C-alpha cells in the first residue's frame, strides 16, 4: 500500500516541481522534507524487522533439516509400506474408475433424451396441394406427399425414464417444420404387472395393425402405406388406456384392449363421456428355426364419430363442408416375417410385411353443413371399403438395403341416402367416387451407422382418380442421444 503512495508522491512532486517551485515557500519545503524523512525512517524500521524474521526462520529451517535426516531413516522403512500401499491404491483406483461410471449428480436422474432429425427433397410430378385419395373420406391427417423441393421432416424429441418401480414415462414431442409442436406420444407404462400384464395410460400409438405402432423414423419407406393413410389418418394415436396380456406359452400370444376418447380419425373429437374408440387386438408369433421369425395380428377398432368433417367440391363447383355422424368399424390383419442367416442380421437380412384393412361405416352424412351451395341436407351413409399393401426389404450387404412396396385400395361400396333418394347426385360427392387406388414404390437406403440413414425412393402413385403422380424422395434420418431400442 505504501509503495504506490510513495511513488505517487514522488511522481506528483516531479510533475509539480518545475511550475510549483517558485510558488512554494521555504517553510513548506521544510515540511515536505520532514515528511519524506519520516517515510524513509518508517521503511527502514520495517526492513529491519523483516530481516530479523528471516534470520529466525533460517534457524528453524536448520533444525528442521536435522530432523529430516533422522526422518529419512524412518522413511526408508516406510517406503516398503508405501510400495505395498501403492499397489493397493492402484486397485482402489481401478475400483474407483468403475464406480465413477455413472456421475453422482442430480443430472444422473435426467431422463434419457434422444432426438430424431429428418429432411426430404421431394420431386413430385403433380401438385401436392391437390392431393387426395379418391374414393375415401378424407382423414384430415397428414396424408399428402408433402411439399415439392426441400423440406424439413418432423423432428422428434423423446424423453423417457423410469418414474419409480411401477412406471416408466415417455414423452415424444414432434416439432413440425411449420413451427408447430405436437405431442406424438406421452404415456406411462407399467413396469411388469406380473402374470404378463402391461398397462399403458396416456397418448400412445394404437396397436391396430403392424405399422401403426412404429414411429415414422423407423419405417422402411419415406411415407405410410395408402391403407394406413385412408383408414388411420396416416398414424393413429389416441388418448386413453391400453391393457394387454402375454400368455405364459412358449409361442408368443398376446391379447390386448385399448379404450380411448377417439380424438382422431376414424373417430372424431366428440363431446361425450366414456370411450369414443375401442380397439381389441390379438397377436401370435414365433420362430421357424434359427433364421426366421414371424408375427401375425388381428385387430378390431370400433369408433363412433360425431360431426366428422371434410371438405369437397360439389356439382356446382362450390366448396362445401360435409359431416359424418355414426359408427365406424375397422378390421386390421397384419403379418411380418423376418429372415437372416442364422438369425444374424448384420450382413444380410430380409423383411416381409403386409396388412389388410376392411372398414364399414354406418350413420348419417350431412351435406353442406354451413349452407354455401345447395343447402344443408342429411341422409344415411353405409360403406364397406378395404385396402392392403405388401412390402419386402432386403439388406443385400452391410449398410445397404433395397425395398419394394405395393399398395392397393378398394373403394368398395358407399351408399348415400341423399343420392339414392335423388335429392343430390353422386357428382355432389366427387371425393367418394369409386376408385381403386394403387401405388408402386421402390426404395434404396444406405445406413452409414446404426444412427443414420439416407434413402432414395421412387413411387408411382395413382391415388387420385385418373391421375398418376411420379414421386421421387431423397431423405435423411438420423438419431442422436440415447440409444433407442426398436420393436420387432
Amino acid at each position, binding site marked *: 500500500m505504501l509503495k504506490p503512495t510513495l511513488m505517487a508522491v514522488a511522481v506528483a512532486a516531479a510533475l509539480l516541481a518545475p511550475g510549483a517551485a517558485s510558488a512554494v515557500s521555504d517553510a513548506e519545503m521544510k515540511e515536505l522534507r520532514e515528511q519524506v524523512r519520516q517515510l524513509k525512517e518508517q521503511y527502514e524500521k520495517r526492513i529491519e524487522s523483516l530481516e530479523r524474521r528471516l534470520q529466525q526462520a533460517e534457524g528453524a529451517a536448520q533444525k528442521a533439516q536435522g530432523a529430516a535426516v533422522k526422518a529419512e531413516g524412518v522413511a526408508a522403512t516406510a517406503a516398503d509400506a508405501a510400495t505395498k500401499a501403492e499397489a493397493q491404491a492402484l486397485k482402489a483406483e*481401478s475400483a474407483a474408475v468403475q464406480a465413477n461410471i455413472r456421475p453422482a449428480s442430480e443430472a444422473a436422474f435426467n431422463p434419457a433424451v434422444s432426438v430424431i432429425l429428418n429432411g426430404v427433397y421431394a420431386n413430385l410430378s403433380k401438385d401436392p396441394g391437390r392431393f387426395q385419395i379418391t374414393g375415401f373420406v378424407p382423414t384430415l391427417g397428414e396424408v399428402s406427399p408433402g411439399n415439392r423441393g426441400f423440406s424439413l421432416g418432423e423432428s422428434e424429441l423423446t424423453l423417457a425414464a423410469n418414474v419409480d418401480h411401477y412406471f416408466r414415462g415417455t414423452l415424444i414431442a414432434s416439432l413440425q417444420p411449420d413451427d408447430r409442436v405436437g405431442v406424438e406420444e406421452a404415456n406411462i407404462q407399467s413396469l411388469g404387472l406380473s402374470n404378463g400384464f402391461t398397462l399403458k395410460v396416456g397418448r400412445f400409438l394404437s396397436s391396430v395393425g403392424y405399422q401403426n405402432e412404429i414411429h415414422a423414423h423407423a419405417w422402411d419407406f419415406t411415407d405410410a402405406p395408402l391403407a394406413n393413410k385412408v383408414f388411420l389418418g396416416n398414424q393413429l394415436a389416441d388418448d386413453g388406456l391400453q391393457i394387454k396380456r402375454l*400368455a405364459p406359452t412358449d409361442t408368443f400370444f398376446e391379447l390386448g384392449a385399448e379404450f380411448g376418447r377417439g380424438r382422431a380419425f376414424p373417430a372424431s373429437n366428440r363431446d361425450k363421456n366414456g370411450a369414443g374408440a375401442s380397439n381389441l387386438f390379438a397377436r401370435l408369433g414365433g420362430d421357424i428355426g434359427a433364421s426366421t421369425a414371424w408375427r401375425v395380428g388381428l385387430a378390431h377398432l370400433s369408433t363412433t364419430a360425431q360431426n366428422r368433417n371434410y371438405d369437397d367440391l360439389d356439382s356446382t363447383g362450390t366448396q362445401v363442408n360435409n359431416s359424418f355422424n355414426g359408427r365406424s368399424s375397422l378390421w386390421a390383419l397384419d403379418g411380418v416375417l423376418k429372415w437372416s442367416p442364422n438369425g444374424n442380421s448384420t450382413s444380410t437380412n430380409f423383411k416381409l410385411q403386409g396388412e389388410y384393412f376392411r372398414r364399414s361405416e354406418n350413420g348419417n352424412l350431412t351435406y353442406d353443413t354451413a349452407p354455401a351451395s345447395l343447402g344443408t341436407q342429411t341422409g344415411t351413409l353405409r360403406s364397406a371399403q378395404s385396402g392392403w399393401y405388401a412390402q419386402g426389404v432386403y439388406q443385400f450387404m452391410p449398410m445397404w438395403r433395397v425395398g419394394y412396396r405395393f399398395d392397393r385400395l378398394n373403394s368398395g361400396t358407399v351408399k348415400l341416402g341423399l343420392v339414392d333418394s335423388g335429392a343430390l347426385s353422386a357428382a355432389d360427392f366427387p371425393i367418394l367416387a369409386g376408385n381403386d387406388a394403387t401405388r408402386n414404390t421402390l426404395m434404396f437406403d444406405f445406413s452409414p451407422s446404426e444412427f443414420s440413414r439416407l434413402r432414395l425412393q421412387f413411387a408411382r402413385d395413382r391415388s387420385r382418380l385418373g391421375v398418376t403422380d411420379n414421386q421421387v424422395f431423397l431423405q435423411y434420418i438420423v438419431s442422436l442421444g440415447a440409444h433407442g*431400442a426398436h420393436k420387432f
Partner: protein
Amino acid sequence: MNRATSKLSRLILPVAVSVSLTLLLAQAAFAQLKVLACEPEWGALTQELAGDKVSVSSVTTALQDPHHIEARPSLIARARNADLVVCTGSELEVGWLPLLLTQSGNTKIQPGNPGYLETSQFVSRLEIPKVLDRSLGDIHPAGNPHIHLNPRNIAKVAEVLRDRLMQIDSANADFYKSRTAAFLARWGESIRRWESQAAPLKGMTMVVYHRDLSYLNQWLGLRETGSLEPKPGIPATTAHLADLVARMQRDPAKIIVYSAYNNPQAAQFLSDRTKIPAVMLPYTVGGSDRAKDLFGLFDDTLARLLAVQK
C-alpha cells in the same frame, strides 16, 4: 346401454375367457427354475452351477452378434416366463433387452429385482471411454462389455450367480452352493493349466475384427495392433482395409482373428494380401464344435491361437 358399449361387452367376454384360460395354463409347469441368458456364455455358466434344477435358454447364439438382435416375439415369450435373466449389461444389449423386459409383463426380471443380473457389474471393465461421442463409433460408456473371455471374470460371476440362484430358489440353496464350489475348483485348475499352456502366446500381436477380445488379450498378454472395423460397430470399409493392408505390410501382426459371428470376408481379404493367417475364434460357447461348454471354449480358443504361434 348404447350400442357401442353393448358391442364392447360382447367382445370383452372372449377376452376374459382366454385370459383366464391362459392363467390356468400358467400354473401347469413350475418345477424347474427358468433362466434366460442373454448370451450363451451365461447360459453355459448357469448350467454348470445349477445342473438339472434349471431350464436354461439363451437369447443369442454364438453365430449372432449380441449387439444386434431383434426383439422377436419368441424372445418376449421366453422373457415372460423367466424366473431369472442373466445378461452382460454395460449397454451390450441396449438395442433389444429393454424391449424384452418391458414387453414381458414379468415383474421378476425387471432391473433392481433378484431375477435380473448384469454380470459386467461385478468385474473390472476395460476401455472405459474418457470421451463419449458417437463420432467415435458405437462405444459403450460403461466400458468394454465382452468380459467373459478372461476366465477369472467367469469365476467372479460364478460366485454372484450362485448367490442369486440361492436367493431365488432357496429350496435348492445347498445344491447350488456345493455345485458352484466344485465348478470353481475345476475352473481354478483349468485356469492354471490354460495359463501355462498360453505362456508362448505372451506378446503375440493380432488384428481383431471388433474389440471383443480385449479381456482375453489382457489375461494372456496378447497385443491388439489393429481392428477390421474402422470404429467400434462400423463395418469394415475399403479405405480402412487398404490402410490396414499397408500398415500390416510394414509392421505385420502375427495373426488376424475374428469371432464366429463375424463375416469372415474382411479378415480373409486382409489375410490374402498380407499372408498373415486369419483365424476364427469361437468367441463364446457354441462358436465351434469343440466349444461345447465353457471349458471347451477356452481349450479351443487357446488351441487355435497356439496353432499359429508354433
